[in-house]
């Protein structure tokens, strides 16, 4: 069979386009709703922590429980048109990764940043965003790198402005970080349609 170099190039280009389309769709459908959920949790839990600082442990325990349960549910539901034959393995790996990562994060926060301080807020936010950037780099998900870097910058700006007012910093993180997660989640969900 005779294939010209130009024809081969065109075919490879079409192959790459289709492959990227499928990969992005699959990713956006899984991650979009999860980001929307976490954006809402940040929008609610950070300002609540500012209002009720003594109850922050309970607020985040409930917020994180809703987040984890909702993320697991959303990963399961969003997978109707492209299904993994062994979805439970992938889903449980992802959930275990985040559970272990956050357990380490809480312990490091206990060691290095006093509870209720501005340092503790920025520590946990930047730690989670570090995971976003690392996942983005490893899984070649550019939007995760941008999202992680953007929210990290917001946390650093907030710390610079409000490091002596942890309650204001909580509201800042809830509004700016929460809205960024929410907007990214909505964007990805719409793109996946």
């Amino acid at each position: 069979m005779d294939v010209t170099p130009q024809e081969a190039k065109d075919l490879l280009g079409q192959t790459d386009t289709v492959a990227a389309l499928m990969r992005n769709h699959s990713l956006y459908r899984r991650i979009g709703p999860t980001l929307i959920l976490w954006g809402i949790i940040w929008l609610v839990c950070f300002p609540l922590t500012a209002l009720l600082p003594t109850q922050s442990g309970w607020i985040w325990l409930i917020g994180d429980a809703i987040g984890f349960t909702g993320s697991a549910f959303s990963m399961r539901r969003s997978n109707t048109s492209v299904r993994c034959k062994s979805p439970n393995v992938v889903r449980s790996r992802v959930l275990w990764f985040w559970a272990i990562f956050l357990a380490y994060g809480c312990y490091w926060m206990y060691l290095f940043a006093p509870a209720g301080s501005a340092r503790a807020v920025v520590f946990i936010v930047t730690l989670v965003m570090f995971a976003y950037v690392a996942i983005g780099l490893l899984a070649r998900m550019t939007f995760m790198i941008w999202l992680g870097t953007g929210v990290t910058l917001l946390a650093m700006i907030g710390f610079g402005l409000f490091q002596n007012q942890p309650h204001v910093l909580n509201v800042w993180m809830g509004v700016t970080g929460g809205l960024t997660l929410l907007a990214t989640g909505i964007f990805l969900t719409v793109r996946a349609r």
Partner: protein
Amino acid sequence: MPQIDEIIHQPVRLKIMAALLASGADAEVEFTFLRGRLGCTDGNLGSHLDKLTSARYVCARKAFVGRKPVTYLSATRTGRRAFEDHVTALQDIIRPPDASNGQL
């Protein structure tokens, strides 16, 4: 040296294989979803899928989601190997002769 695979070489079939393999090693894709993504008609996609399933490059599985019948498609191991060889053959065609044999 990998050769052009005449079954996969047809552009729609090449796109079908690319779409199925890009979805993940362990993934299966719904027929109607694939049709929408590739911009094909039912008949067109169906006839190309027949060729790919006859060659054992693609596996079709029928299931029910609620009461709705759904066809899920996935690439077989043979299909994956054939696609990879075909892509290598295409890359060899566009690669300058110097690069493939190392001669000046």
